[in-house]
């Protein structure tokens, strides 16, 4: 009964080709470890992410872009900024801090 089951995720970086892919892989690792079955994980560039973020439950992005997601946050999307996109530990902690993981 993981809290994150069926939730939709967006991972987002500047170009949507390098860093966001790494973030997506880190996320898949973390969700597997937590035993979560996510609804959908989408990765994209910040230009697209700024407008589509509100369609997702949870958004992961790098710290510098988190501030661009205010509009989505106001609509209830949880926006989590990461310093190290490859750190499963940091990502897991971010989910925990947001009350999304035990």
């Amino acid at each position, binding site marked *: 009964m993981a809290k994150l089951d069926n939730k939709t995720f967006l991972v987002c970086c500047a*170009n949507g080709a390098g*860093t966001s*892919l790494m973030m997506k*892989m880190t996320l898949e690792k973390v969700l597997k470890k937590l035993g979560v079955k996510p609804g959908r994980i989408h990765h994209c560039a910040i230009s697209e992410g700024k407008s589509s973020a509100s369609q997702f439950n949870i958004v992961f992005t790098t710290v510098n*872009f988190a501030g661009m997601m205010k509009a989505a946050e106001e609509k209830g999307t949880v926006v989590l900024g990461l310093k190290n996109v*490859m750190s499963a530990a940091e990502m897991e902690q971010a989910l925990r801090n947001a009350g999304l993981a035990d």
Partner: protein
Amino acid sequence: MASVLQTIVEKKHYLFVDKVDSWQEAVRLSAESLVADGSVDADYYQQIVNCIEKYGPYVVFDHYVAMPHSQENASGVHKTGIGFMRVKEEVSFGKDEDGEEKVAKLFFTLAACNPDEHLNNIQQLMGVFCNEELLDALMEANTPEDILAAEIAHPIEED
């Protein structure tokens, strides 16, 4: 299947330099081996520089690793690949939003036009970037043989 490091050596996508004048110069040089065999156009690096100037040094990770890249299907990219460069003297990309200086000695510059190959490259690079002993050994590398030896001495963990 060949590992990313083996492919870098096989395709001669490497460069070893002592120092560079700026991070912009570093990005240009890191793409030079990709330019040499027609993987990317000579001005491809400029797109990467523009991106970093616009969004900050987000391509610089921990442990002196930089992964300069543009978007998938960027113009001027003809083959998917990775240009490796080791610089002896650290290259500063300036400070991030927390005021922390971002520095790199190892460059893995991405060119992507085939999504499957690119995904495989990224997946493998994560294994490299998370292996600090391997990164330390690569920072000491001076020849392509050193790259291969580093990988044998510090194998990438699969998970």
